[in-house]
């Protein structure tokens, strides 16, 4: 069973839909016992990081998430909440990944939000098993995690190279949306399920 953490983080149906397409069973839950019992945990998130962090704190799940020893995957803002802090607020986050989250600087070549399909580089994790550098995934975000020792994939928007994915021990995060990234995204989710 996969637990998708339900902390009122906006439209998270698509993550569940993607798991259904892969034949995986999941439940949306904020129940600590269910989250602890799950084989894998997904922390989704859309919208404003400071507001999402406030809701996650209200849910009382922060310490529980940090204590998990099974694979955890943060997606988009869910991943940003697993970083050290975010300029969006600014807000202190969970500090699982040693990365600051910063805002893109708008240039004629780099519109903000960074929205659409972009290529991954420097793939360095079992999460990307079977995938080649240059594989395209779908992004929708205005803030990005900087490069850091936890970076396991990069992406370039205009001049800015940033972390497209992070990993620290059993914690994984993708700035892109694997659930909306076609066959490449399905492969990444499948790899996560196989961890």
């Amino acid at each position: 069973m996969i637990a998708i953490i339900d902390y009122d983080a906006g439209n998270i149906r698509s993550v569940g839909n993607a798991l259904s397409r892969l034949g995986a069973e999941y439940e949306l839950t904020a129940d600590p016992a269910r989250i602890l019992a799950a084989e894998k945990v997904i922390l989704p998130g859309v919208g404003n990081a400071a507001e999402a962090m406030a809701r996650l704190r209200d849910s009382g799940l922060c310490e529980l998430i940090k204590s998990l020893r099974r694979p955890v995957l943060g997606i988009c803002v869910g991943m940003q909440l697993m970083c050290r802090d975010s300029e969006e607020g600014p807000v202190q986050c969970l500090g699982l990944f040693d990365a600051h989250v910063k805002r893109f600087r708008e240039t004629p070549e780099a519109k903000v939000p960074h929205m659409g399909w972009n290529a991954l580089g420097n793939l360095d994790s079992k999460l990307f098993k079977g995938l080649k550098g240059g594989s395209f995934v779908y992004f929708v975000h205005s803030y990005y995690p900087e490069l850091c020792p936890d970076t396991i994939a990069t992406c370039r928007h205009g001049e800015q190279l940033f972390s497209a994915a992070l990993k620290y021990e059993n914690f994984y995060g993708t700035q892109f949306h694997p659930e909306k990234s076609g066959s490449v995204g399905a492969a990444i989710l499948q790899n996560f399920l196989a961890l």
Partner: protein
Amino acid sequence: MVAKRIIPCLDVKDGQVVKGINFEGLREVGDAVGMGVQYARDGADELVYLDISASREGRHTFAGLVERIALGIDIPFTVGGGISTLDDAARLLDAGADKISVNSAAIADPTLISRIADKYGSQFVVVAIDAKCIAGRWTCTTHGGSRLTELELFAWAREAQERGAGEILFTSMDHDGTRAGYADAVYARLSEELTIPVIASGGAGSIEDIRRVLTEGRADAALAASIFHYGQIPIPQLKKALLEAGVNVRM
């Protein structure tokens, strides 16, 4: 660099995909979910589903359809047609749509754009604009091109951006259905004046038309319907040709 997007547009009436030729003589071409799955497999980057049902039952059918589309396809999709309130938008987002597009209702009440954007974020809001060139002035229309407004295209597009639109989907009513190419110069000017992405719609007849609007026309995405639905231009072939022509597309 963000790839240029290819977007098949599916007009849906009572759950079935239809394509109007100049908005008349509607013709069914297939199952909405099945066609979406096939397009996603073929390499479409995104899909747009437009509800053209006129009745309440038709609208109800559409919301149910959006749930099935969300379950079936693994690429982003936008839904539009008849969204006139924040509640309409909320219902479709809850059903699983990634973005919604507003058109006539946003012209009638421009605060609709900001209300949806404030609640759900700009990335959820596509403002669709249908315009035609009248005596040298690009004039916005509503209700499928049947009613002229006072609004000028570029001014309205800028206002939509200021109010929180995440993208502009501009259809030239002069080009739509002609298969003689997009209004390239108009897209180039929109791209120049706006900071948000511009989706080109109306007039695609060949691979070259699409290449031109994505390069000279500087559009971020090219939308088309009939050339895809009737198999005239298979998407894998289109993408290969664009890549060979130096356009950054997702393969």
